[in-house]
Every structure is written in C-alpha cells, then in structure tokens.
C-alpha cells in the first residue's frame, strides 16, 4: 500500500492534470473573447492552484515556473496588460511545459529546462516596463492559503485633526486605500461640523467609523495611516477574528457596540433597553446618541453578520458531493455486475423450469434489482464527451496555423455522456477525421473566397443521444468529396470494374477500403482517405458505424454512431437448431413468419412480402451451413441495417436477453459477422451477430458468384 504522502502526490497529479486541461480550454476561449474578465480570472485561478498545491507537495520546479506565468496574468487581471495572440501562444506553451514537468515527476522523460526558460523570458518581455519581481513562490503560496481562511474584521475610528487638509492630505484617499484592503463599510460623522460663521473652510470637521473585513493583517491597516499618524486620533480594534464559532452567527447587540465604542454609558443603555422599543430609534428620539452614530453601529452589525454568514455557507458549498475512484476499481465492479447478470439469467431459467411460485417470485425480484444495479453501475462510468472536445480545439488551432488556413472549430453537445472506455477509444479516430477535414476538406482562404465562401472555414464537432447510441458528427464546409476521382482510383486499384454502378453512399464507402488511402495521398488531391480503413476498424471495434455524406463544393458530414456502453447490451435471443445467436435489440424492427409456401411463392429469391413490400432476407441456416432439423415454419427477424430493412431467417425467436459481451479468442477474432459471444443462463454460449457486416459479406459473396 502506498504511503499517505504518495497518495497525496498522486491526487495532486490528477488534480493538476484536470486543471491544466481546464486551463487550456479557458485560454482557447479567451482567444475568442479577449475582454472576458471571467475567463482571465479562471486562467489566473487555475495557475494559482497549480502553483499553490505544487509547492505544498514538493513540486518546487512546477511552483516556481507557474509563479512566473501567474505573475504575468496578474498584470492582465489588473488591466495593466492586454490579452494578445502572442501572450496566449506563450501561455499555451507554458501549459505544455507544466504538463511535461508533471510527467517528468511521474518518471517520464525530463522536461526541457531551456524551453521553460525561453517561455518565461518571452512572457517577461511582454510585461509593460516592469522588472521581473523575484519572490519565493513557496512562501507566497502558503501565506495565501493561510490568509484565505482567516478573514478578520476590524473597527477603525479615524478622527483627523482639523488642520489635516492644510498639509495636503485628503482623508478621502485614505478611505479609498482602506477599501482596497477588503470589504469596507464607511460612515462619516457630522456632529463636529460647526455653525457657518465659525467654520474654517479649510479645516476638516468630519470623523469616521470604518468596519473593514480583510484578509490582511492589522499592520496593513496601520500602513494606510502611516503618514498621518501624528495628525489624527486612530483607534483600531479587532472585532471578529475569523475563528468565532459558526453557530454564533449573530453579532453583538447594537447597545453593546455603542457601549464598547464609548459612545454610550452602560447605565444609559439599560435605561433604554427597559423601554422596549427599537433601540436605535429610541436613542435618536431621546437625543442620547446622534443618528449618525447609531447608523455607524448598525453598519458594523450588518457587516459582521454578513461576513459570518459567508463563512458558514462557503464550506458547505466547497465540500463537493463527489469522490474520486480509481478507474480499475470501477472496471472490476462492472465485470462483477456482468457475472451477476449471467447468474441471474440462470436463476430465472431454473425458476421457470421448477414451476415453483416462491422461487419465481424471488427470481423476479432479483432480476429487477440486478437490472437496476446494472444501469447504475454503467452510469457511473459515463463521462461527458466535452473533455475530448477541448483537446480538438487545440489541434485545430495548431494545425490550421501550420497549414496557413483559417479554421474555427465549433462544438455542440459537449455534455453528452458516453462510457469512459468508449471516449478513450474514440479519441484517435476523431483526431484522424478532424485532421482530414482540415487537411483535405477546408480549402486555402483565397480558394474559398474565389468560390464565394467566407475565408474562414468551419469544422463542426457535435454529439447527441439517439436511442442507446450517441451520434458524433464531424461536419466541414470545405470542398467535399470528389466522386469522379474516387471512382477512378477505385477502378485503377481494381476495387470495382468499369461498368459497376454505384450510388453516392457506395462510392464514399470506397475510401474505407484498405490501401485506398495511400494512393490518394500520394497524388495529394483533395480526396479524403488517409488511413480511413483504420478509422473504420476502430469504430467497428466499438460496435459503432460510420457514415459519410458529402456534396462537392459545400462540404462533408461524417457521422459516427457509437453505442453508449461496451459491457452489457440488450439483445434478441434467437435459435437455429441447437445453436443460439443474439441480435442487437436496438436494430430489431419486427418479426414475421416464413412458411415453405412463402419461399416457393418467391421462386427461390430471398425476398419476403411484408405488408405489400418486398423485404430481402438472409437465411442464416445457409450462411452458417446448418442443415439439420429445418422446421416448416421459420421466423424472419427484420432489422434496420444502414437505413434499409433486411430480414434474418432463424428457426425460433426465444426472447429478449441482457447480454454481457465477452470478446472472442484470438482465433475467432476476425470472423466476419460475429462481434463477440455471451454466456446464457444454462451455460451455453451464444454468438453475437453483427448484422451490418453479415449483410456486407453476403453481398460480397453474391458479387463474386454473379460478377
């Protein structure tokens, strides 16, 4: 077991990684809205946290480096510096540098120190005529941490001598300095203002009560008054030290405050209290304390109450309602739930066979609970896809700069949730597709202008739910696919013959053929296809589908349909002789009967009449060469495959089944049309069919047979 120290360091790494990706997102957003103060603050906070906790866990190099960057952003935050492209470039580089420093500390290759030095000096050059402030980051960060917790409140009575303004001091500027220290309540007192004929206009007859809540110490307050020390009566007292117990939200009573300040004697206070009216009003009515004094005391009361309230509410909000769990523990849990689902299927089967009502009742209860458990467990692995999207923003930015194109990445549906593993495996194909869109899809600015399009191209990356799948679309407004060129290439490579008639979809699908890409790339024409076969394979490994539509001149849309989860799916269990197969339930449209008479009526063609419509079907018996025990009446399960209705003929439809997907062994991995296997309740294995690939392979064999 790792020591607590090691665990904390691991937590820091995790947090820092999260912060760094947040930082990247904020920086890229900042590029679009350079005036957005919220974003600037977010960048600053991320830096600050990386620095602060870095120093705490002994990542001194990271703390030091981040400090330099933070210093620059402090200037931006204070409006002393503008957000420029150059600044953002350097900050993004700095972010990468921190990432590599973090990796180096975890045993990765050491970070390039010279590069870090270059970034820092670049940043410092950007700073407006300010010498680099050398401070020791460790001290700063710990001091900051401590002060953030302790917000103290002080009561200040400031009574300058009348001649104070003659010396050139403006008391108002002192008040403004105090306001900069923290939240401040200022009340001026007028009772010393004399009658007009006695008034010396150049003298100051006002005096002030100030309640200041600040994270800075009493010294900071004294510093404000340092030049007028001898010209005023100054009285600073701590009235709330930040450590008051939380249940004591109410501050002192008004009377107590006045007595404490010496504006009211205790005897007078008791006299008034016994009158049972609103204390402040009575005081003024009776002329014991001037209205301004009461008001000032009330202001103090208000301020402290508010500060205390803030203190009690913030920790509750901060204690976020989530915990961190290592991914492998979750994976283990999902595996266990998978086993449990299998066992439960077994139990249900036994219960059904026994015909014992008690056992059936228990089995049903178990089934209900397990399906709930399954859904909850799978939900725990769901992550919003947005985390991947932000990476692509950077990709688009860097790549378009490299190629001299102007491209914006738009995203939508970043909150769409997908299984963690799916998101991870989706990353590479998406990078590939976006690269393709930028490289081959979007044209150079001048060509775009000539074609009457805005010079800035748009790549749109979107995600949305659709049934039990997520649709991820990559859309660009570039040149689109050149059908003629694809066709010519395909004929050249012998993929199709000269007189093959192909629809748009079939033509586009040609670019997924292995080896097609390389040829296209060598000619460096605008066709897509750099390793598109690899992309297709990766998507199919996720049991997803890929679909292209494109119009020449206006752009292309690539749609990926990805199942929500990889582990457990709803299926339809079917039987052929003694063999069981499962079909994805999401694709099933309906089931119909197929009699010998129907087959004869179709003259041997594989077509079934469904409500007057001809539906082609694939006979799985023929496909899998199962000859024994063909029943007189068979069943056709009609599925929606790639937008078409296609039937699959089986002996019998058993029913719905929750399928825990098991991968096939190495030998069977590449069997076309079978995507995996599952274990049924009684221990038999059922193969999971992939309808899309089955249809393709049948089409291919027929093509071979009939040319």
């Amino acid at each position, binding site marked *: 077991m790792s020591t607590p120290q090691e665990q904390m360091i691991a937590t820091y790494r995790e947090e820092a990684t999260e912060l760094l990706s947040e930082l990247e997102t904020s920086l890229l957003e900042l590029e679009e809205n350079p005036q957005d103060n919220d974003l600037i603050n977010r960048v600053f906070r991320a830096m600050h946290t990386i620095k602060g906790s870095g120093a705490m866990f002994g990542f001194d190099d990271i703390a030091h480096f981040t400090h330099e960057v933070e210093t620059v952003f402090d200037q931006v935050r204070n409006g002393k510096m503008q957000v420029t492209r150059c600044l953002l470039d350097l900050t993004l580089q700095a972010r990468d540098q921190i990432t590599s420093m973090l990796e180096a500390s975890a045993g990765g290759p050491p970070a390039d120190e010279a590069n870090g030095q270059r970034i820092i000096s670049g940043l410092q050059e950007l700073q407006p005529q300010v010498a680099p402030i050398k401070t020791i980051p460790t001290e700063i960060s710990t001091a900051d941490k401590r002060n953030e917790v302790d917000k103290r409140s002080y009561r200040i009575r400031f009574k300058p001598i009348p001649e104070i303004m003659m010396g050139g001091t403006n008391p108002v500027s002192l008040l403004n300095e105090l306001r900069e220290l923290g939240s401040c309540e*200022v009340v*001026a007192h007028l009772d010393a*203002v004399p009658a*007009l004929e006695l*008034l010396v*206009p150049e003298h100051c007859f006002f005096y002030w009560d100030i309640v200041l809540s600040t994270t800075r110490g009493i010294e900071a307050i004294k510093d404000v008054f340092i030049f007028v020390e001898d010209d005023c009566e100054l009285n600073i007292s701590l009235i709330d030290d930040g450590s008051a117990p939380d249940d004591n939200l109410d501050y002192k009573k008004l009377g107590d405050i006045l007595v404490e300040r010496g504006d009211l004697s205790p005897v007078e206070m008791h006299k008034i209290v016994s009158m049972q009216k609103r204390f402040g009003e009575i005081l003024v009515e009776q002329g014991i304390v001037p209205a301004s004094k009461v008001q000032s005391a009330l202001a103090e009361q208000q301020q402290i109450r508010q500060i205390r309230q803030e203190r009690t509410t913030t920790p509750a909000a901060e204690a976020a309602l989530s915990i961190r769990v290592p991914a492998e523990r979750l994976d283990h849990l999902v595996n266990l739930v998978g086993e449990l689902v299998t066992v439960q299927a077994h139990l249900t089967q036994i219960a059904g066979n026994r015909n014992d009502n008690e056992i059936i009742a228990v089995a049903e209860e178990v089934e209900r609970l397990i399906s709930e458990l399954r859904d909850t467990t799978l939900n725990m692995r769901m992550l919003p896809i947005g985390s991947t999207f932000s990476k692509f923003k950077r990709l688009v930015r860097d790549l378009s700069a490299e190629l001299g194109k102007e491209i914006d990445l738009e995203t939508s549906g970043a909150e769409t949730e997908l299984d963690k593993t799916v998101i991870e495996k989706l990353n590479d194909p998406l990078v590939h597709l976006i690269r393709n869109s930028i490289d081959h899809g979007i044209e150079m600015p001048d060509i775009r202008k000539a074609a009457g399009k805005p010079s800035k191209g748009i790549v749109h990356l979107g995600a949305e739910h659709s049934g039990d799948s997520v649709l991820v679309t990559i859309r660009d407004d570039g040149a689109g696919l050149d059908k003629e060129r694809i066709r010519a290439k395909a004929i050249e490579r012998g993929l199709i013959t000269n007189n093959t008639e192909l629809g748009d979809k079939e033509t586009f699908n040609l670019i997924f053929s292995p080896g097609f890409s390389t040829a296209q790339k060598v000619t460096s024409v605008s066709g897509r296809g750099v390793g598109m076969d690899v992309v297709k394979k990766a998507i199919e490994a996720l049991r997803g589908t890929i679909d292209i539509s494109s119009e020449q001149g206006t752009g292309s849309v690539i749609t990926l349909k990805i199942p929500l989860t990889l582990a457990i799916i709803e299926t339809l269990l079917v039987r052929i002789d003694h063999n069981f197969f499962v079909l994805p339930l999401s694709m099933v449209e309906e089931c119909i009967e197929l009699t010998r008479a129907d087959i004869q009526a179709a003259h041997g063609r594989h077509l079934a009449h469904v409500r007057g419509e001809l539906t082609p079907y694939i006979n799985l018996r023929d496909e899998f060469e199962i000859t024994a025990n063909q029943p007189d009446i068979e069943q056709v399960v009609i599925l929606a495959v790639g937008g078409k209705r296609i039937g699959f003929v089986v002996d019998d439809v058993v029913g719905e089944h929750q399928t825990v997907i098991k991968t096939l062994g190495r030998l069977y991995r590449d069997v076309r049309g079978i995507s995996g296997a599952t274990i049924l309740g009684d221990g038999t294995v059922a193969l999971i069919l992939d309808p899309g690939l089955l249809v393709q392979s049948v089409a291919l064999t027929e093509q071979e047979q009939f040319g």
Partner: protein
Amino acid sequence: MSELNISNTVAGNGTSLKITIAGKLTIENAAELQTNLLGNCNKMENIQLDISAVDEIDLAGMQLICSACRTNLDAKRQFNFTGCISEAVKSAISAVGLQRQITCKHNADLPCLWCGGIN
C-alpha cells in the same frame, strides 16, 4: 467648468433666496461660498440651494453645505435643496461615507443632502 459660479436670485418680497452654484466646489473656493452665504442668508426666511450644476465637490465643499444647512435651520429659516445631484457629486458623497437614511437633529423634516433628499 473649473471655476465656481454663484448666482443669487431674490424673490417673494425679498424673503426668499435661491442660490445656484455651478462648477467646482472645493477647498480652494469654499471660502468664497461661505462669504456669500454669510452675507445673504440673514435677512431671508426661505433659502433654496441648487447644486445640480456642481460637477466636482470635495470634503471641504460638503462640510460647508452641511454647516450652512444646520446653521440656517437652527436659526428657524427654511433651508431647501432643489435640482438633481450630478453623478459626480453622488459618488463623492458615498466615497466620504455620508449617505444617510435619517436626517440629523438640526433638520426636522426637510430634504437632506445626505439622504439624497433632492431629486
């Protein structure tokens, strides 16, 4: 405008005075207004002060108006404000910490500068 302009208008058989001040009311010229006020208010029953055209005021200016207000009120003369206060004056008043909810003891019920009494 950087100078102080004071203009007095007498009405109602010489018992009402309207004082209009404009420009800068600061420590440099507060004495000028003080002299004016001291010289003209004594014979009046009703005094109106219009500071809507004042675009800069400092502590000395505020102090002077306050003193004039309470002096005249104590002498049982009506002392009133008219016109809108400019934003610059309003923010100067809040910077000094003079915004009030209730009038002072010299003032029974009349509008008070610190209560935002003139609108």
